[in-house]
Every structure is written in C-alpha cells, then in structure tokens.
C-alpha cells in the first residue's frame, strides 16, 4: 500500500497490509507531530505534496527497498493537509523473514523519503511559521 491521504492514517490498517505467512518480523515507523522544534512551541503543521510525483517517488523507494532486502511486503502512507499536535504525518511498515532486514529496510525507506519525495512541511508557531529545512 503506497498512498497519500488527507484523512488521519489508520495505523492498524497499514500494519495489517504487510502481515505475511513467510514473515517472522515486522518493523513499523510512525512519525508524529512533536510539541517543540528547537524550543519553539509548534501549534500545527501543514504538509503539501506534488502528489503524482510523490507517489511515483514512493514507488521508486519501494522498488529499491525490495531490491536491497528480502522484503515480504511493505507499505508507505503519508498524510497531507493540516495536522495537529500528536497526529501522524507518516506510517511505514515492512515485513521480512528475519528481523535485521525489517529494521534496515524500514530505516532506509524513511531516510530516503525525507530526501527525495516532493512533500513540504510548514511548521506553524504561536508567533510565526517556517518551511522546514528550506534554508541552510
């Protein structure tokens, strides 16, 4: 399952999508909205995506992950729109026969997603806002 969604991500649905008879391990990464970024209080976040390219880049990551590790199944779901404190921007789940591959593959997916997928995050503070990572 690879998708962008405007609705809250259903974590159990993402996890259920990767269970597999041949899998002994599932690793799940969940991003959540923290209340602070370097001491400034975050009120909410806005995620926007260049949607069709974001999906195509997530599919490329999935393909590359399956080339590098013996993955049974994997899912990547990213939220877009406005998120409040505690809500979940991203949920990734990977099932593999053995656990070390599940950890490595899941870590690779989130690291690569943050580098290549055209999604942008704006943090809204009580006294301003900032596009995350835009400046050096």
């Amino acid at each position, binding site marked *: 399952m690879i998708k962008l969604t405007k609705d809250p991500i259903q974590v159990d649905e993402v996890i259920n999508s990767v269970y597999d008879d041949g899998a002994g391990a599932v690793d799940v990464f969940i991003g959540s909205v923290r209340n602070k970024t370097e001491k400034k209080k975050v009120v909410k976040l806005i995620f926007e995506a260049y949607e069709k390219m974001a999906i195509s880049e997530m599919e490329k990551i999935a393909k590359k992950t399956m080339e590098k590790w013996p993955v049974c199944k994997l899912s990547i779901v990213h939220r877009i729109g406005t998120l409040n404190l505690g809500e979940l921007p991203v949920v990734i789940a990977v099932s593999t026969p053995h656990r070390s591959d599940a950890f490595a593959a899941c870590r690779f997916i989130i690291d690569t997603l943050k580098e290549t997928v055209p*999604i942008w995050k*704006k943090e809204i503070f009580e006294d301003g806002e900032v596009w995350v990572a835009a400046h050096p």
Partner: protein
Amino acid sequence: MELQVIMFGIARDIVGDSKLKLELDEGASVGALKKHLIDGYPEMGRLKSISFAVNTEYVDDNYQLSDKEEIIIIPPVSGG
C-alpha cells in the same frame, strides 16, 4: 520560448503564485532556468537547494527544456 513553471512550498511563497510564466531561449537548460529564477527572485538563491522535475521525474542542470513539458520547481523537501 515561453515556459510555465509550477511551484510548491517556499518557492510558491517567494514568487507569490503557484505558476510563473517566463521567456527563455529555445532549448534552454535547467541550469539556465535556475539562473533566470535566482536573478528574478534573489530569495531563491538563499534556499538550501532548488531542484527541478519534468513530467514527475527529477532532471539535472543539463536537461534541455521544452515548452511542451510540465516543469516543476522543487524547493528542499521535508516530508516524514
């Protein structure tokens, strides 16, 4: 040729619109487009990076642009 580029995130905020029309030489490269943008919008030059995509694929500075393709400006991504 007249190109129309589409912008997201901070690039859209800098330009003040999600679409921008501009005039470049026939067969101009992505590098030339980047220079043109930074000349017109110096704030673009202060971003950590500016990437470009054509038809949903990243393209590098040497890529030759055409007015028939969808050109996207991609400021530093921050998903996850």
